[in-house]
C-alpha cells in the first residue's frame, strides 16, 4: 500500500515524460555488447534438444557469457561471471554440447552452468584450490544418469597442484576428484568414450617439458594408466602445444618442432608420435599454425591444420586411422593471399570445413577435396579476421553456410553464403571517452552574422543583401525538394524528422584499445567511420575536445591526435611530452548562446598545470593525487592560490563543478503567494566529496572556485566507501548519493539520495547581504548561501550522476542517474527532488500551487522515469547530455560498457508535434469541413428563401 501510494503521488505530480512504446528504436538506440569473443569458446549450439534453430554462444574477454541470435545479431541473454576480488587471468572458458540444455562457463575460480535457452542459472560453484585451467562436458552419459544434463570435467590449477573433478550436471556437486601433487603444470583435460585424460606438463631435467597423460576412469576417477611423451626438445612452454583435441573419438595432441619444419601428432592415450613434415611452398615463414578438429564424439577422426604466413595462408587435412593411430595427409587447401580463417563443424559423422578468405567462402567435406559450396565474399576489411565458427546445412547436394567471423578489433560479423548479415561492434565496450561533434556548416552562418554585427549599418545591409542573393542559387533545388518534403512530412512521423534541429548529432568515441569511432546518434548509432589510432591495450585517453570540423584526442603522456570529425582522417599528431597528465582542463566563456572554448591545458598528477595560462583570464581548480583540492590563477603555476585539505583521515575522491552549459532561466523561485526566493547563483561552485575509509564517514564540501572558501559542508556517518558515491551540481542545487548503513537500530539502512538547494536568504523577497547589488565578488565578503536539504532513501545504488542540458534552461531539469544493479538510466524530475517539500504535513494551498507535495522518506523510481525503459543497459560509466535547437529536447549518450543514446524531454516535447499528431487527420478534417459547407450551402439558401416567402 505504501508503495502504491508512492506510485500514485509520483504519477500525479511529476511531469511524465516517459517514452512511448512506438518511439522505441526511433528516438533511441542501444548497442548491447559483450566484448571481444574468446576464439576457443565461441560456438553454434542448439539451445535445447527440442529446438532446431541454433544460437551463437560465446564468453568474452570481459568474462561475459552471451547468447546471440545468428539471424540478426541481437543479444538474447548475457551473464557477467567475473566476480570482484577473484583473480581472473585472461578470458574465461565456455563449453556447450548439442542436446544438452546448458552451457558451462568458468572465469577465475568460479564455475557456473547456465540454461542455454534463457540464461538462467543452473548451478554455480566456487573452487577453493585455484583458477579453472580447463573444462569439458562429458558427452557420453553413464548408465546412472537420468536427466539430459551432462556432467562437467573441470581442471583447476593452484599452487603446484592440479585437481580434476567431475561435477554433477544438475547440482554442480563434486562426484569425484583426482589430485595431482607431483608438481607438474596442469594443462588440459580431454575425454574419449571410455576414458578421461588429464594432460600435464612435466619439467624435464634440463629444459623443456614432457607431456604426461594420465587416464582416469570416468565413473570413479581412479587413475588407470599414465603415459609420458618425450617432447622436451620441442616444448618449451604451454604455448608450444598447438592443440589438445577434445571429445573426439580419437583425441589428439598436436605440437610442432621449434623450427616449424614438422608437425608432431599424438593420439591421446598412446605412446606413438606421428611426425609430419610441413610442406611449405609459400616461401615465407610460418607465423601461426592452428588445428581444427570436430568436437563431437561420433564424428570422423579427421582434422585440419591451418598455416598462416605474413601475407597468406593454406591448410592441410589429415585423417587418423583409429586402429593404428597413424595420421596421414588427405588433401590440401591451396595457398591464398590475404586473410583466411577456417571453421569446423559436423553433421552427424560428416565433418565440414569452411574457409573464409578475402575473396570467397568455401565449404569442403573432410573426406574429399571436392568443393561443396563456393561464394564470392564481400568480407574484405582492414580489420583482419582471426577466427571463425561455422554452421553448415546440407540439403541434398547443395550446402549453405553461415560463419561468424571474429576480427582483430573484437568486432564480430556473421557471413551467410558470402554476404555479411550483421556486425556487432564489440570493441565499443572499451569506450573511455566521448565528445559531441560540432558541425561545420552552421558555424559558417554564425561567422557571417558576426561579420554583419561588426560592420557599419550600410555595410552590413549590403553584406546581408549579397548573402541573400547568394542563397537564391539554392532556390531551384529547394523548390524541387518541396513537394517531396510536404508528402514525407504528412506520411512519416515527426519524431524521425527533426535532423535539422540538431537532434541527429554525431559523437566521437575512443576506446582503451586505441580505436576511434564516430557514431551517428540520429541513425541508431551506426558507425560512420572508425580507425585504429594506436596499437595498444591501454590507451590512456584524458579528453576529447571538439571544434567545428575536427576533434582532438589527448593522451596521458602529453601527446594528442587531431582527426577530421566528418571523415576520420588524421590531420595531425603531436609527440608525447615527458610529463604524465592527470586530466585536461578547458577554459570556456559565454559567446552568444553557446560556450566558446578559449583554451585547454594539461594537468599533472600532482594537480599543477603543465604550463602557464597567461593569455587567458581565468582560474583553475584541480585535484591532486594526494587528496587535496588546489586553486590556481594565471600568474603563478608553481604554487596554488588556495588549497583545500579535508579533515584528517578523509581523502578527496571526487570534485564536480557546474556544467559549462548551464543556463539559468529564472534567477528566483516564485512561491505560491507570488513572493520570490532568490537563487544563490555562483558560476564557480565546486562540490568536493571526501571519504574516511576507517570510520566510514563522508564529507561533502561546497567550495567557491575562485577563493577556495568553504560555503557549505556536511558530514555523513555510516557511509560505505567501497560502494559508489555519485554527485552532481547544476544551477543552484546539488545532489549526491551513497550507501548509508544503519548506525544504530533506529536509523535506516539503504541507499540514500540527498538533494540541496542554495538560496540567497531564507526569507522571500529578500536577497540577504547582497540586497540590491548587481555584482558580487568571490574575494570580498562572499555571502554564504542558505541551504535547504532533503534526503531520500532509494532502492538501489547510483554509480554516476548527470543533469539534462537544454538550450535555454527553461525546461525542467532531470537528474540522470545510472543504476548499475538494474542496468538502467533513470531521469528523476527536479520537482520531485525539491527539498522544500513539506515534511509530516500536507502542503498548504500556496505550496500546492507551487507544485510541492508531501515529503516521503522513500523515493520510489517511477517506471516512467526510466530513460532506458525495459532495456538492459549494462556497464555504463558516464552519461553525456547535450542541448539541441529544440528547447524541450536534450540528447543523452551513455557509454562505458554498452552504448546507449536517447532523447530526453523532461517537460514533454512541447515544441514538437509528436506521433499522436496526425497531419493526415488534419487534412482530412479540413476536406470534410469544406465538403460539408458545399453540401449545406444550397440547403441553407433554399431554406432562407422559403422562410422569406412563407413569412410574407
Amino acid at each position: 500500500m505504501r508503495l502504491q501510494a508512492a506510485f500514485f503521488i509520483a504519477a500525479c505530480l511529476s511531469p511524465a515524460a516517459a517514452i512511448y512504446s512506438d518511439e522505441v528504436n526511433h528516438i533511441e538506440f542501444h548497442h548491447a555488447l559483450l566484448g571481444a569473443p574468446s576464439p576457443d569458446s565461441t560456438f553454434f549450439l542448439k539451445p535445447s534438444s527440442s529446438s532446431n534453430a541454433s544460437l551463437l554462444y560465446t564468453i568474452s574477454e570481459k568474462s561475459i557469457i552471451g547468447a546471440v541470435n545468428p539471424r540478426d545479431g541481437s543479444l538474447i541473454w548475457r551473464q557477467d561471471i567475473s566476480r570482484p576480488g577473484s583473480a581472473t587471468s585472461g578470458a574465461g572458458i565456455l563449453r556447450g554440447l548439442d542436446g544438452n540444455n546448458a552451457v558451462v562457463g568458468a572465469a577465475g575460480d568460479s564455475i557456473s552452468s547456465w540454461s542455454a535457452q534463457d540464461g538462467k542459472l543452473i548451478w554455480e560453484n566456487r573452487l577453493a584450490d585455484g583458477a579453472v585451467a580447463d573444462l569439458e562436458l562429458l558427452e557420453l552419459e553413464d548408465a546412472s544418469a537420468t536427466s539430459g544434463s551432462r556432467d562437467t570435467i573441470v581442471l583447476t590449477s593452484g599452487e603446484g597442484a592440479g585437481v580434476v573433478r567431475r561435477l554433477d550436471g544438475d547440482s554442480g556437486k563434486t562426484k569425484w576428484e583426482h589430485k595431482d601433487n607431483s608438481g607438474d603444470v596442469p594443462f588440459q583435460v580431454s575425454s574419449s568414450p571410455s576414458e578421461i585424460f588429464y594432460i600435464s606438463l612435466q619439467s624435464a631435467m634440463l629444459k623443456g617439458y614432457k607431456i604426461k597423460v594420465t587416464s582416469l576412469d570416468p565413473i570413479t576417477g581412479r587413475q588407470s594408466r599414465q603415459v609420458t611423451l618425450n617432447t622436451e626438445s620441442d616444448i618449451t612452454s604451454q604455448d608450444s602445444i598447438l592443440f589438445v583435441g577434445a571429445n573426439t573419438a580419437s583425441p589428439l595432441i598436436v605440437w610442432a618442432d621449434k623450427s616449424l619444419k614438422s608437425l608432431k601428432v599424438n593420439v591421446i592415450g598412446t605412446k606413438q608420435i606421428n611426425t609430419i613434415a610441413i610442406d611449405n611452398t609459400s616461401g615465407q615463414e610460418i607465423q601461426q599454425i592452428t588445428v581444427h578438429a570436430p568436437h563431437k564424439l561420433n564424428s570422423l577422426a579427421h582434422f585440419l591444420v591451418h598455416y598462416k604466413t605474413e601475407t597468406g595462408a593454406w591448410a592441410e587435412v589429415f585423417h587418423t586411422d583409429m586402429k593404428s593411430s597413424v595420421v596421414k595427409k588427405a588433401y590440401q587447401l591451396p595457398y591464398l593471399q590475404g586473410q583466411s580463417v577456417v571453421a569446423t563443424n559436423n553433421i552427424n559423422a560428416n565433418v565440414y570445413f569452411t574457409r573464409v578468405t578475402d575473396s570467397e567462402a568455401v565449404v569442403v567435406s573432410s573426406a574429399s577435396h571436392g568443393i561443396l559450396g563456393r561464394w564470392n565474399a564481400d568480407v574484405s576489411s582492414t580489420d583482419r579476421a582471426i577466427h571463425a565458427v561455422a554452421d553448415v546445412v546440407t540439403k541434398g547436394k547443395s550446402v549453405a553456410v553461415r560463419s561468424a567471423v571474429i576480427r582483430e578489433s573484437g568486432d564480430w560479423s556473421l557471413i551467410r553464403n558470402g554476404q555479411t548479415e550483421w556486425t556487432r561492434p564489440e570493441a565499443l565496450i572499451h569506450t573511455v571517452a566521448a565528445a559531441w561533434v560540432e558541425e561545420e556548416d552552421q558555424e559558417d552562418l554564425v561567422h557571417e552574422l558576426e561579420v554583419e554585427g561588426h560592420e557599419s549599418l550600410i555595410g552590413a545591409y549590403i553584406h546581408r543583401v549579397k548573402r541573400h542573393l547568394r542563397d537564391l542559387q539554392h532556390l531551384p533545388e529547394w523548390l524541387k525538394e518541396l513537394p517531396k518534403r510536404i508528402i514525407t512530412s504528412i506520411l512519416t512521423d515527426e519524431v524521425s524528422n527533426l535532423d535539422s534541429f540538431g537532434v541527429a548529432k554525431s559523437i566521437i568515441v575512443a576506446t582503451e584499445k586505441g580505436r576511434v569511432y564516430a557514431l551517428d546518434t540520429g541513425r541508431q548509432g551506426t558507425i560512420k567511420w572508425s580507425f585504429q589510432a594506436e596499437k595498444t591495450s591501454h590507451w590512456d585517453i584524458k579528453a576529447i575536445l571538439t571544434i567545428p570540423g575536427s576533434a582532438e584526442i589527448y593522451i596521458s603522456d602529453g601527446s594528442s591526435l587531431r582527426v577530421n570529425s566528418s571523415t576520420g582522417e588524421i590531420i595531425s599528431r603531436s609527440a608525447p611530452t615527458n610529463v604524465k597528465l592527470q586530466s585536461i582542463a578547458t577554459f570556456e566563456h559565454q559567446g552568444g548562446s553557446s560556450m566558446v572554448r578559449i583554451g585547454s591545458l594539461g594537468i599533472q598528477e600532482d594537480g599543477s598545470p603543465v604550463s602557464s595560462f597567461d593569455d587567458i583570464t581565468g582560474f583553475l581548480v584541480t585535484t591532486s593525487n594526494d587528496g587535496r583540492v588546489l586553486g590556481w590563477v594565471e600568474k603563478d603555476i608553481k604554487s596554488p592560490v588556495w588549497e583545500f585539505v579535508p579533515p584528517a583521515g578523509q581523502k578527496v575522491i571526487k570534485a564536480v563543478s557546474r556544467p559549462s552549459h548551464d543556463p539559468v532561466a529564472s534567477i528566483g523561485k516564485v512561491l505560491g503567494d507570488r513572493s520570490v526566493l532568490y537563487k544563490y547563483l555562483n558560476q564557480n561552485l565546486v562540490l568536493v566529496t571526501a571519504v574516511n575509509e576507517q570510520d566510514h564517514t563522508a564529507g561533502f564540501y561546497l567550495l567557491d572556485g575562485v577563493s577556495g572558501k568553504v560555503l557549505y559542508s556536511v558530514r555523513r556517518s555510516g557511509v560505505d566507501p567501497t560502494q559508489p558515491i555519485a554527485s552532481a551540481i547544476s544551477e543552484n542545487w546539488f545532489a549526491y548519493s551513497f550507501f548509508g548503513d544503519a548506525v544504530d537500530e533506529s536509523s535506516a539502512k539503504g541507499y540514500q539520495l540527498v538533494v540541496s538547494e542554495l538560496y540567497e536568504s531564507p526569507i522571500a523577497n529578500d536577497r540577504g547581504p547582497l540586497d540590491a547589488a548587481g555584482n558580487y565578488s568571490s574575494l570580498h565578503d562572499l555571502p554564504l548561501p542558505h541551504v535547504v536539504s532533503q534526503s531520500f532513501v532509494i532502492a538501489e545504488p547510483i554509480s554516476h550522476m548527470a543533469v539534462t542540458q537544454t538550450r535555454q534552461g527553461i525546461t525542467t531539469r532531470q537528474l540522470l542517474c545510472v543504476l548499475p544493479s538494474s542496468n538502467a538510466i533513470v531521469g528523476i524530475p527536479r520537482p520531485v527532488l525539491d527539498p522544500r517539500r513539506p515534511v509530516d504535513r500536507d502542503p498548504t494551498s500556496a505550496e500546492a500551487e507551487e507544485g510541492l507535495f508531501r515529503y516521503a522518506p522513500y523515493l520510489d523510481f517511477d517506471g516512467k522515469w526510466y530513460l532506458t525503459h525495459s532495456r538492459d543497459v549494462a556497464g555504463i560509466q558516464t552519461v553525456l547530455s547535450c542541448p539541441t535547437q529544440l528547447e524541450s529536447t536534450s540528447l543523452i549518450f551513455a557509454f562505458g560498457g554498452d552504448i546507449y543514446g536517447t532523447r530526453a524531454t523532461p517537460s514533454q516535447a512541447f515544441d514538437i508535434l509528436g506521433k499522436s499528431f496526425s497531419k493526415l487527420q488534419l487534412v482530412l478534417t479540413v476536406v470534410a469541413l469544406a465538403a460539408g459547407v458545399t453540401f449545406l450551402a444550397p440547403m441553407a439558401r433554399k431554406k432562407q428563401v422559403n422562410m422569406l416567402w412563407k413569412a410574407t
Partner: protein
Amino acid sequence: MSILLPLLWLCHLATATLTISIPPSTHLPNPHILPATTHATLTTLPAAGAGDRDPSHILTTSLTRGSTLVFNDIPAGHPESYLLDIRAGEYVFAPYRVDVAADGSVMGVWETFRGNPWENRGAEKYVVDIAAKKAADVVVEAKVLGKKGFYEERATFSPLSLVKNPMILMAIVALVLTLGMPKLMENMDPEMRAEFEQQSRASPITGATTNAMTGGGFDLAGWMAGTAPNPMASAESPREGATGRETTTGSARKRG
C-alpha cells in the same frame, strides 16, 4: 584424514544456504517470465575497522531455472544484519532484513520498509529454532509488490472519447434543437402553436434572437449562401424596430 573431517564439517557449517523462492502471485502469475538479469543482493557495511573482509559484504546471486535465488557462501566471522534486495526488471520486490550469526548461519529473515528505522521489522519470514540447534538450509518466499510501467500510453482515437467532450456534447444538443424544433412545432396542436408563437413574440429574449437572426448580427450561413446582404450594407441600412421582421426582410428582398 582425521584432521580433515572436522575441517570439512566446519566448512559445511559456514556454507549454510539461504534460498529465496518466488511463488506465483497476483502481480506475477508466472515467475518463469522473470528476466535472466534478475538477481538478489545482500548488502551491509561491516563495522568500522573490519574492512579487511572486503568486498564480501555485498553478495549477489542470479536467478535459477527453478525461479529461486540461492546464496551459498554467506561469509562467517562476524554477526551481520544484511539488507536483501531483489531486482527484476519491471517487477518490484519487498526488501528483507537478513540477520546472520557469526558462524554464517541465518538467524532470521524479516520484511523491512525502506526509509524506516532498521529495527522496524515487518512480517517474520524465518527465525532460527534455537532448540533444534540445526543450521538447516533456510528457504523464504519473496514478495512481489508491484510492476513498473515504463511506457507512456498513446491516446488512441475512439468515437467514445469524442462524445465525452463537453464541447461536442453542446454542439450535439444544439443540433438536435435546431433540427428537432420545427418538427416538434409541426406536430403540435394548431391552437397551442398559435399560443406558443404569441408567447415567443412577446418574450424579449426570443425577440432579440429573432432580431439577431434576421438583421442584428452577421448571418454567416446566409452570407455564404449569397442570400444575406453584405454585413457592411446591413449595418448602414436603418433599423425600423425591434420586432420589425417584415420590414427588414422586405428591404433585404428589395435589394436582392
